[in-house]
C-alpha cells in the first residue's frame, strides 16, 4: 500500500505519537520511512555574529537531541530510518520535502491548539493537510 512514509518530528507529544505510528506502519507495510525535522529561523537583525553563532549552536544541539530520540525510537522498532534536518517555514518545508521525495504518506502530530487559535491562525496540521501532495495521517 504505502511504500514511502515521511514523519514530521519536532519532539512534541503529538510528534512523538506520529513517529511511533509511522514506525509501526513502516514495519507492518515493509515501507521506507524518513523522519523530517524543520529548524526554526535564526534571530533576524542580530547585533553581532556571536549572537547568530550562539543561536545556531543552540539550535544544532536541540536538533541533535531530537535526532537521537528519533533514532532510538526507530531502533526500538527494528527499523532503518533517515533523519533529515531542514531549515525553513514548517509547513512549506514539510510539504516541499514530501513532494520532492515522492512520499506517499505523510504522518504528522496533532498539536492541540485552542479552537479560537486554530480558527484564527489555522494550525500547522490543518495547513499540511490542505497542501500535502499525498494522504496525511494525523496522530494524536
Amino acid at each position, binding site marked *: 500500500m504505502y511504500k514511502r512514509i515521511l514523519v514530521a518530528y519536532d519532539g512534541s507529544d503529538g510528534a512523538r505519537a506520529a513517529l511511533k505510528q509511522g514506525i509501526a506502519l513502516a514495519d507492518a507495510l515493509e515501507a521506507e520511512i524518513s523522519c523530517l525535522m524543520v529548524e*526554526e*529561523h*535564526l*534571530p*533576524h*537583525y*542580530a*547585533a*553581532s*555574529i*556571536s*549572537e*547568530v553563532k*550562539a543561536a*545556531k549552536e543552540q*539550535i*544544532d544541539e536541540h*536538533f*541533535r537531541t531530537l*535526532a537521537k530520540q*528519533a*533514532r532510538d525510537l526507530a*531502533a526500538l522498532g527494528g527499523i*532503518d*530510518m*533517515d*533523519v*533529515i*534536518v*531542514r*531549515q*525553513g517555514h514548517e509547513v512549506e*518545508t514539510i510539504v*516541499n*520535502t514530501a513532494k*520532492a521525495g515522492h512520499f506517499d504518506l505523510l504522518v504528522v502530530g496533532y498539536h492541540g491548539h485552542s479552537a479560537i487559535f486554530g480558527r484564527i491562525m489555522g494550525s500547522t496540521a490543518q495547513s499540511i493537510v490542505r497542501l500535502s501532495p499525498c494522504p496525511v495521517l494525523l496522530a494524536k
Partner: protein
Amino acid sequence: MENVWILAAVWVGLALVATLVAIWLKISTALSEIVVGTVAQLIIGVIVGPNALGSSTAWVSFLAGTGAIVLTFLAGAELDPDVFRLKWKEAVVVGLAGFGAPFLGAAAAARYVLGWDVGPSWLAGVALSTTSVAVVYAVMLELGFNVTEYGKAILAACFVNDLGTVLALGLIFSPFTLRTLVFVLVSAVVFFLLPIVTPRFFRRYGGRVSELETKFILLALFGMGGVALWAGSEPVLPAYVIGMLLAGSVGKDHLRIRRLRTLTFGLLTPFYFIRAGSFVSVPALAAAPVVFSVLFFAKMVSKMLGVFPAVKAFRYEPQETMYYTLMMSTGLTFGTISALFGLSHGIITPGQYSHLVAAVIGSAVIPTLIANALFMPVHLRGGDTGEPAPTAAPREVVRGGTDHV
C-alpha cells in the same frame, strides 16, 4: 533614582523583557533591547520623570560603554582571515565603495537637504555608512550562502566597510593634536606586539579557572580605549582593530569567544542597547517623519550608487549584484555606536540622534526583506534544486543509526 540596586533591577528586568520579546518575535535581542529601551523611557519618563531610568548615570554609562567596546572587539575577532586572504581585492574595492558612497551621500543629504550643521552632517555620514556583518551573516547562514565563494566575498567586504566606518568615527572628530600622534604611535606598537604576544602568553598561562585570558583582553581593550579617549578619539576604534588582529588566534578559540559572549550578552550589551534606545525620542520622530525618510533613502540610494558598480566590476550577474548590494546596505551595531558617540559628545541633538537611530534600524530590516523577496540568487545556493540549501551547520541524515553529515 538613588538606589543603585533598584535601578540595576529595573535595567536587568528590561533586559529580560527584551529577551522574551526577541524570542516571541524571532528577532535579535539587540534590536528588541533598543525598542524596549525607547518604550521604557517613554513610559517611565512620563510616569516617574525623565531621568528615572538613569541612562546618564556613571555606572550605567560604564557598563554600556564596555558593552560597545567588547561587542566591537568580538565583531573584529569574527573576521575569517583565510576568507579575507582569498577575496581581499574584491573585499577592499566593494568595502571601500560601501563605506565611501553612503558616507558622502548621507552627509550631503543631512547638510543640503535637511540643513544640518557640518558636524552633525559628517556624523550622519559615518552612522549611515555602516553595513551589518551580523545581519548579513545570519542571512548567509540561514540560506546556505556562508559556505559559497559569493557569501564569503560579501562577508569580507562587510568587514572592510565597517573598518572604514570605525576609522572615520575614530579620526574625523579627533582634534589632531600631539595627543593624536601619541595615540597613533602607541597603537602602532600595541597592534604590532599583540598578535605576537597574546597567543604565547595564553599558551603559557591560559586555560585556568581564573580566566586570565578574559582579563588580558579587557586590559588591552580598556588600556587602548583609554588612550583613544585621552586623544579625543573613540574607544571602539582600537577595539575593532585589536579584534581583527587577534582573529587568527583568539577568534579561533571557540571556548574563549563563548565565554566572552556570555559576559557580553548576559550583562554588558543589554545596558548598551537599552541605553541607546532610551535616548530615542518618539515625539521627535513623530514630529518630523520626513527627516527619517531622507536619511534612510540617502543611505539606500548612495549605497546603490557606490556598491552596485563596484560589485558589477567583479563580473557578477545583475541579480547577484543587486543582492550583494542590498546586503551591503544593512546596518545596526556600528550605526547606533556612531550615533551614540555623536550624542554623548554633543555633536548631534537628541532629535537628530532619534532620526539617525531610526534610519539605522530601518536599514537593518528593509534591505534584507527586499533582497530575500526579490533578488535572492537561488542558483548560487550550492546547486539548489528547490530544496533547502545546506548550511555550515551539520545537516544530519541518519540511516540505521549511522550519521552522514
